[in-house]
């Protein structure tokens, strides 16, 4: 399913949402490679980070062979949760950690073996980018980072961690300021816009229950329709209540679409079908590249944050594990961080990345200052106009405004069931 779009998105190097398991049918070969010339590091993950440029650079820097196995989110999660033999490293989002940890297909990572662990930022280690920042709801990265003595995951720092924190960013919704008046970041811009009657029929939602539910919850809460004891751990009754609200809105025609891929989200806006909707930053970039103004909102309720996780397969041993550790250290070493910075993502060792960025790039991407020139994407094409400022401000300011971290809540299976009712209502 959608091989074309998957591939095109791979070329574009853009993050994709969970996209089903279409490739799973052919995606489960027992990958047992001949090991004549040392181990080949097999990295399972998504198109967001599994870029050919990164692979080549890593191979060159590390002197090892690396194989990237990109796939749809659900597909790679299923593989990671059931077939640890098929990969050495797994790159995905923090919301998959609980599943993997329970499935015991990943092993703890020894921070002592990571040369740059000390340089990993406080955001990843404490969940706060600054002492004054409020931690968001849901699985704050540090709460699922440390392997506690009882084998569970917790916030108390330990030497062993469940994943290496690396790429991260905040998501919100994008909107067309030509159709909707431009709001002031953190003041006017609100998740509540998704359910605003004046935008009825022109709203898109991400077609993913695990994160779409937060967009809906933030929107409903912003409009005072519902409240949650804990936004990041909704109870069944809260989920049901939220869906009752969402379904009522859907039936009234509030939502134009539930997008399943970044290009789809951009396409909807470019076709003029939608004026706003939950989006990922590459989608916003695509809309702008299509010649339509699009702002990536800084909602006053805060962002929905996500954190990339790099996990070590439970089956990785010896030289494979060594190669995996070297690869992880390489990811913290600066070049990859600079690479993804140019895509708008942050790295857990920002100072290392800074060394690989021009000063003006650093000031734009991390410090929220106006671009002094047209700034390039990793492939060199300009993606930022001169004079543009990153909406929401600096890295710190943005991560000081986190409403919730992407989380697979215990009510996830219920959410999935209700999701189709919402979509088809």
């Amino acid at each position, binding site marked *: 399913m959608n091989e074309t779009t998957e591939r095109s998105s791979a070329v574009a190097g853009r993050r994709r949402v969970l996209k*089903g398991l279409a490739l799973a049918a052919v995606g489960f070969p027992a990958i047992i490679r001949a090991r004549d010339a040392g181990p080949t590091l097999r990295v399972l993950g998504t198109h967001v980070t599994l870029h050919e440029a990164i692979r080549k650079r890593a191979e060159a820097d590390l002197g090892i062979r690396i194989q990237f196995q990109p796939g749809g989110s659900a597909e790679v*999660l*299923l593989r990671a949760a059931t077939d640890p033999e098929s990969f050495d490293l797994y790159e995905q989002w923090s919301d998959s950690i609980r599943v993997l940890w329970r*499935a015991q297909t990943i092993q703890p990572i020894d921070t002592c073996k990571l040369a740059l662990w000390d340089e990993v930022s406080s955001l990843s280690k404490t969940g706060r980018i600054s002492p004054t920042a409020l931690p968001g709801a849901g699985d704050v990265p540090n709460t699922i980072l440390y392997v506690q003595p009882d084998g569970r995951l917790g916030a108390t720092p330990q030497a062993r961690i469940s994943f290496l924190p690396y790429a991260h960013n905040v998501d919100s919704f994008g909107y067309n300021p030509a159709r909707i008046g431009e709001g002031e970041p953190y003041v006017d811009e609100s998740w509540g816009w998704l359910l605003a009657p004046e935008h009825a029929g022109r709203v898109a939602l991400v077609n993913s229950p695990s994160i779409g539910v937060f967009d809906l919850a933030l929107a409903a809460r912003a409009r005072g329709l519902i409240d949650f004891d804990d936004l990041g751990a909704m109870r069944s009754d809260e989920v049901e209540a939220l869906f009752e609200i969402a379904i009522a809105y859907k039936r009234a025609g509030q939502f134009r679409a539930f997008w399943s891929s970044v290009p789809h989200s951009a396409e909807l806006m470019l076709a003029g079908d939608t004026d706003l909707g939950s989006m990922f930053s590459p989608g916003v970039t695509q809309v702008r590249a299509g010649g339509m103004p699009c702002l990536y909102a800084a909602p006053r309720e805060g962002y929905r944050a996500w954190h990339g996780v790099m996990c070590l397969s439970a089956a990785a041993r010896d030289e494979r594990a060594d190669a995996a550790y070297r690869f992880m250290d390489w990811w913290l070493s600066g070049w990859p961080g600079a690479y993804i910075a140019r895509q708008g993502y942050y790295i857990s060792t920002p100072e290392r990345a800074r060394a690989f960025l021009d000063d003006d790039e650093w000031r734009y991407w991390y410090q929220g200052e106006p671009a002094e020139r047209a700034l390039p994407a990793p492939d060199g094409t300009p993606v930022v106009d001169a004079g543009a400022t990153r909406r929401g401000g600096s890295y710190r300011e943005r991560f000081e405004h986190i409403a919730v971290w992407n989380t697979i809540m215990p009510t996830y299976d219920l959410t999935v069931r209700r999701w189709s009712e919402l*979509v088809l209502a």
Partner: protein
Amino acid sequence: MSSRRHLPWLVRRFALRKRLSLVVWQAVLLVVLLGLVALLLANVTRLRVNELIRASDAARLMREVRIEVDGMQFDVYRAVIAGHDSAGVKIDQRFARARDLLATCRDDDAYSGCSGSAPDRLERLERHLQAFHAGYREAQAQQHRLTNSLHDDLHPLVNRLRMAFRGLDGKAGADVPPGIVQVNEVRLDLIEQQAQKLTAVAGPFHGTEIDDQIDALIADFDRLADRMEPGARAQAEAVLGELSRLMREMMQRARGYLFLVNVVVAADAFEMRVLAGLVESDLRARRDAVEQAIQTGTGRFVLIMLLLVLVGATLIYQSGNAITASVIGQIRRITRVFSELAGGSLDPVQFDSPHRDEIDDLVRAAQRFRDENIEIRDLLDRHEALNRQLELRVAERTRMLEDSNRELGRLARTDRLTGLLNRRALDEILREAIEHSERSGDALGIMFMDLDHFKDVNDTYGHETGDRVLVAVAECIRSQLVDGELAGRWGGEEFVVIGPGKDGEAMLALAERLRVRIQGSDLNGAAAITISIGVSARGPGDTLQSLVERADRALYRAKHLGRNRCESEA
């Protein structure tokens, strides 16, 4: 030719017959033009109607697509959630049908409406349809693998664990809570039930419950494991580990297909519904637009026809008028020419006829008419001249006759010898003079003269001399008379003079003058001639006779008293 410049263009350009047929041709041309325009507009309308039909057909197709999509979504639920195997066949049928409908819509010219309206949307529709079907297929495959795992892997594992746990029954020691084996049996049943739920047919599952059951099972097993034989324990641990792994794998697999059905496929279905709806409403909008266009077109058609008729009729009317005017103008002029000709005009026919047409015939006729006129006028003139000649001659004759008559009259009252009044005339004149004198009261005197001894003259000298003497005396008398005094020969050698307005005295003086004159003249060489005169004047109560008698008596007395003397008797 330059003289023709003043002629109206139409006249210059077209002969009469052509001008008349021009009007007819214009009318025919207008009718043909109207026909052509009507045909053209009818054709445009027909094309529009075809487009309307295409748009309607395409909209119907899209509606059918929507129906198939809804049906497919329903059938996916039946197939995956309710486990209706028959639904799978229907999905494939509906998929094929929807795909064919879209292909028809895209490729078939008869439905060019769809692709024309939103090719991008149609393309996206097809993409989502493929995605939908692929998603369903994948979900079904996952579900099948899950069901197979359930039967082939899970049940044997659970049974082996069940046997292992049963082997522990009764061996429970003080450290083992009583009934824990039974609890674990129940747990295994629950795990089996949960596993059943993973196929969805048995109802919804909760991942957390499965995790909890497995965790609890492992915890309990750890408490029981010490009582097992080391070999059996290792075996049971392996089975438990495998069961735990299998359950989690099955759970992920279940999440996978449920995700496909609830999220991926559902969103594709929704997107298709929206897209088909959008295409359909696009088509409907276009159909409405075309319908509107047809309506406007029809209105415009009527308007154009009306305008054409109006403009055409006006043009024909105008040109017809011009042509008629040109014809009437010519006819009027020729009529004027003819009426002038009829009035006898001889002026040359001034009529410029540039064509050999009927007007020209009339002009020729006018020329002939004029020629005739000229001929007639000549005849008349000659006739008149003759008349005048005749009249002159008649007048002359009349005058001659009058002259003759007058001469005759004069001759009748004149003495043939002397040319004096004769007796008849004297009688008449005397009577008239007396009547006049009586009426007017004017005087009237007369005298009677008689030659003395005239018998002697005659006898001596002959009658011829006598006559000469008479003539000479008459001549002498006449020469002495003045206006109004008349002289006549009474007879023989007697003369009478009448003096109107003269009384006796005046008459006597005259008589004396005459007597003297005659006496003194040499009237006859031979012998002197004298004359005796008797005078009378009218007195009251005189008649002709009395007057004459008195004059005669006076004469007699003169005679008697010696002749050559004058005597009067008042």
